[in-house]
Each structure stands twice: as structure tokens, then as C-alpha cells.
């Protein structure tokens, strides 16, 4: 039997809003033009709750919760921005910058990067934590694409797009914590992958310059993501 979603009413940032019971706080906020920063979330992919950029305060809950994976409830009171939330978000962003080598000025995605845009939007002017400067490889073995792990934020969008939309599941994440790395098949070079269909969805859902098209120079890599919700909708109808 198909689950019937009920209409719930809640308050986000003092505004009375309504949504379906299977909608997340983030979805309802978006429908009501309330901005919540996101990074691993992408419309058309499953919700992952990995990056924690969308954390919000819910009255009565002891901890901050990710808006993308928390469903709305009747009478919920949500605050999407406060000094506390802002500071947490800044720390998360700063830590992302320290973990890999994000050199915007020499990046193919400069000016079109979600990480960079977030830093600008949230006003991340400096990073207090020491940078790790890890030595990360660049996989340029694929005919058309490049994977540069220096710029990866482990959002997992590529993994989800490859699995959920393309159905190839070529990409995955290996390792734990800070040593995690996006891999191709069983940690093979991208060029030798037998499962990759070279569809390029992973490249276009990637928020940074980690996955890019070959031949692009600095600031030339613009991602096209509008295909994703459309593709999903058409498949659901089938």
C-alpha cells in the first residue's frame, strides 16, 4: 500500500510554513526561499548528510541536526542561522580546506566551485587550523576526464550519481575518516575501468574541481547539473 504523506506545519526562522511529512527541513526551507548552505546535498540524488553544512537548530533537540536528512514534524521550531550554527559551519568549511590542497587560483573550477562559493558566502576569510598539505595523486588515465584528489571534499555526490542515476557504481569511497578516498572500481586507474560508461555524470555533479573534463584550463570547468532532477523525474515516470 502506498504510504500517504500528511501535511505538517512548522516554524522556520519565525515563519510559519507547511510541508509533507516525508519532506526534509531542507526541502521545506527551499520551497519557502529560506537559504540553508549545502555541499553534499544535490537535488536528484539521495540525501547523504555527510558534509554537515546544513546543520540547523530544532527547539527541544539537544544537538544540531542536518536539515537534509531530518524530516519535518508537526509543530517543529527550526532556526537555520545563529552565531553558534554559523561558527560550526565555518569550522567545517575551514577543516575541508585544510584536508586537501585547494588552490583556487590554479583550479579549473575557479569561479564555478561550490566550496569556493560557500567560503565566500559564509565569509571564511582565513583558516585557523594548520593545513595538512597531503601529497595526493592526479588520475588522468581516462580519455575524457581527470580525477584530482587534491580538490575532493568527499561529498560522495559522484558515488551516488554513478550508482543511483547511471547504475554503474564505478565510483566508491574507500578508507575511513581523513584517509578516505574516492576510488574507481577496486581502486584501479579510471582509464582501465571496465564498468565506467564515460557518461560524465560524476564530473558534472562534483561540487569542486576534483572531477573535471580533460583539456580544460584554469576557471574553464563549468558544471551542468540541471539534467539531474529532470533525468530522475523521467525515469520515475517510466
Amino acid at each position: 500500500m502506498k504510504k500517504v504523506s500528511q501535511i505538517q506545519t512548522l516554524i522556520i526562522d519565525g515563519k510559519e510554513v507547511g510541508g509533507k511529512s516525508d519532506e526534509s527541513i531542507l526541502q521545506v526551507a527551499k520551497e519557502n526561499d529560506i537559504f540553508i548552505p549545502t555541499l553534499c546535498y544535490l537535488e536528484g540524488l539521495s540525501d547523504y548528510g555527510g558534509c554537515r553544512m546544513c546543520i540547523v537548530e530544532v527547539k527541544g533537540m539537544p544537538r544540531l541536526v542536518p536539515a537534509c536528512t531530518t524530516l519535518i514534524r508537526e509543530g517543529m521550531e527550526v532556526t537555520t542561522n545563529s552565531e553558534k550554527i554559523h561558527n560550526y559551519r565555518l569550522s567545517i568549511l575551514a577543516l575541508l580546506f585544510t584536508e586537501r590542497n585547494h588552490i583556487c587560483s590554479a583550479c579549473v573550477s575557479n569561479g564555478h566551485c561550490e566550496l569556493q562559493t560557500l567560503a565566500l558566502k559564509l565569509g571564511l576569510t582565513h583558516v585557523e587550523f594548520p593545513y595538512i598539505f597531503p601529497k595526493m595523486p592526479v588520475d588522468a588515465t581516462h580519455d575524457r576526464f581527470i580525477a584530482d584528489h587534491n580538490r575532493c571534499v568527499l561529498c560522495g555526490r559522484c558515488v551516488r550519481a554513478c550508482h543511483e542515476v547511471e547504475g554503474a557504481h564505478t565510483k566508491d569511497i574507500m578508507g575511513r575518516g581523513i584517509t578516505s578516498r574516492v576510488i574507481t572500481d577496486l581502486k584501479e586507474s579510471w582509464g582501465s575501468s571496465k564498468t565506467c560508461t564515460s557518461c560524465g555524470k560524476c564530473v558534472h555533479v562534483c561540487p569542486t574541481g576534483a572531477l573535471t573534463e580533460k583539456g580544460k584550463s584554469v576557471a574553464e570547468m563549468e558544471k551542468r547539473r540541471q539534467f539531474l532532477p529532470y533525468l530522475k523525474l523521467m525515469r520515475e515516470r517510466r
Partner: protein
Amino acid sequence: MSRELVIDPVTRIEGHGKVTLFFDDKNEVKDAQFAVTQFRGFEKFVEGRPFTEMPSIVERICGICPVSHSLAASKACDSILGVRIPSPAKKIRQLLNCGEFIQSHALSFFHLSSPDFLIGFDSDPSIRNIVGVVNKNPQLAKNGIRLRQIGGHIVEWLGKKRVHPAWVVPGGVNECLSEEHKDMMLKEIPEAKEIILNTLKLFKGMIEDFRKEIRTFGNFPSMFLGLVDAEGNWEITDGYLRFIDSKGNIVADMIEPSKYKEFIGESVEEFSYLKSPYYKKIGYPEGIYRVGPAARLNVCNGFSTPLADKEWAEFKELERGPVLSSFHNHYARLIEILAVIELEEKLLNDPDILDTHIRAYADVNEYEGVGCVEAPRGTLFHHYKVDKYGLIEWANMIVATGNNNLAINKSVLQVAQHYMTGTEITEAMINRVEGVIRAYDPCLSCSTHAIGMMPLKFTLIDSDGKIIKEITRG
């Protein structure tokens, strides 16, 4: 007892340098070392990067001449692609280089060096700077700033950014010139021409006052290197290498820049991070050659634009053979500003300049590529090797200032021997040592200290390492 005098840092140049003078027992300067004290490491850390990123990565070497590095890099990358770039792309890149020459030469002449000419080498260092120039000759200062702005406009209107535009790419450029920006550039040309012609007139009128400096500022026989076009005329973006000897004889001509290694060797000295290239057939360290504005004017057969050609003929009258004094780099720089303004006008009136066919696409077809252009301060080489996936495996760069390294050392020695008397450290001597370095307009890194005074420290050290005298200014 032998002693050392250290000038650290050298001021009003781009970057950080240090000069050490060595004295013999008779208190006479016996040797001089010009050292670049910063390590940048670009040749090493670009390893592993996709070659398509190179034009923008190497741009960050410098805030004054990023365009030169991006052009040299993109030309090296063109070779890796194995393509001949479309002719409009070639022309539009030349136009970009014009913009850079105007702004960089204007910075060198007006902001960095004109205080020496207007206020004097012997004047108080606290007023001998661009602010002093503003007070003494406000129109000249204004003209300098305006000229730099006009050059900057060309770069900005082409690449969307005045410094570090990400516009030059392997295979060409990534956006064509708009009609609107073309008209805006054309509109500024008459003013730029007027400024430079007036400045040339003013400078030529002053030359007599600097007879002593002309005689002692790197005035010695050496070889010269520069790019020339197929007719042997002055060229800054494409062209062939030409070496001449100190008498003006052509010793190597029409050399494809990709063959630079057959002619240029690179040596390293322990005291400096800057390499010392030399002419291979003569060897190290005797194979000194000079690059830069005066060198370019010395090697070429003339200019293909009328006003600059006329000025060039007058410049060549200074001496029978090549103009040997490095002081005349200032003069040559002004003639080059005029030349690039004329070239800019010629390019803007070329119907090709608005063409939209501005980029060639290809995969990696060659594993090695050399790119060479004339940077404002001299010939610049970028040489890359890539793997089959296009990742950089090895890079070699000979920057203009590197080419001049041996000559700068020799020039500093000449000035110090002339102006140093005993152990007396005079302002006049210090500024002339700096002045001769400034004549080469060295770009030691990416710093842009166009204004103000950095702390300058002089130390006299005896042979036991004991400090005899210390003076700090700034």
C-alpha cells in the same frame, strides 16, 4: 684583512635581493655578488599537474609580468598539443603582450626608476621615491600612472582581470575580443602615444646629466640575446632567437626557440637561488649575454613601425656597435613602449582581431614542448615534458632576470669599484648599486614594492666574520 659589505634587501626592485661586496686588504672592492634570497620552486611543484593548467599556474610566479609567463607556458603547451594555433589567436595574444609591456615598462620607468632621474642619485632616500616624483613633477607621475592604466586596460579588457587573467590557454585564448573593447582600446592610443613621446623627449634631454652613470652602469662588452621576426626586426611574442657579440656581429641567428639548450647552458651558484645561464659555446662564466630592452634594440635590424624605427635609429647612434651601457635600458624601455603602442594600433586595425576562431583543440601529441617570448625584462623560456596522459613530468624555466644574472653581478662590481672609496658607505654608492640593478628591471619574484622603502641593512664583515659596521635605513 678582507671584508664584506652586505646590502640586504635591495630596494625599489620587484622581489627581494641582496648584494654582498668583498673587499681586499687595500680596502678595494674585489668582488660582488648579487643574490636572490627567495626560493619559489615552481619548476618542482608543477610536476604531476595537468599541462592544461600550466598557463595559469606559472602566471602566479609574478604580479607584474604574469602575461609573459602565461604566454610562454601556452606556447610550450601548443607544442605539446602539436597544433598550429589559428592566426587570430596569435594576433590577440600579441595584443595582450602589448598591454603587459606598456604597464610593466611604465612601472619600471615611472614608479621605480624615475625618482633617480628626477630627484637624483645623491638625494635623500626618504624623498627619492614615487611620492617624491609626485611632488617634484606631478604631471610626469600622473602620466606614468595613466600609461600603466592604459596597458592594464588591454590586459583587463581581453582577459577580464588586470593581474593574473585566466585567458591564455593551450591552443589559443578562451574568449575573443569584443568590438566594444576594441574601440575602447583604440580610443586610448592617442593619449598613450602623446605621453610616451613627451617622456622620450624629456629623457633624451636628461641623458647628458647621467654621463657618469652611463659610463659605469654595466658598461662592458658582452653578448646580447633577443627575439627577432623572420626579417630580423624587433619581435616580442613569436619569432626566432638571435645572439650578437659585443661588436654587433651576429653569432647565431634564426634559431628556433625549441633549440635553446644547444646555445644556453645553466649554472648554479651557492649564494643565490637564481640560475646563471651562459652562452654554451663560450662557457661559464665567460659566456655572459644580456637580455632586455637594450639587448632587443641591439640585436634587431629595426622596427616595423615608423615612430619606433625612427627612435631606434637615433638610439643606435649612441655607439658604433651595440649600446653597451645597461643604463640605456631605461632609454630602450621608453622606445619599446612607443613600439608596442604602435603595434597595438596595427593589431587593432587588423580585421582578424575580432575573429572568433581563436582556439585549436587537440590531445597530447608531443611529450615535450618549449615556449619562448620576450618578457618586458628579457627573453623567457618555458620547457615542459609530459607523460602520455598530459601530466607534467619535468619543467625548466629560464626567466629573463636569470639570463641577466651574470651581467648584473658584473655590473654591481663595476659600480661598486667606481663609487666605493675605502670603508665609507655612502648613500650615493648604495643607491647606485641599487640603481644599476634597477636598470635591468629584475623581477626577482612576484613582489610588487612599487612604493615606500623596505628596511635596508648594510653590514661590513671582516675575514673573521666580525661585524665592523652596521647601518640600517628604512
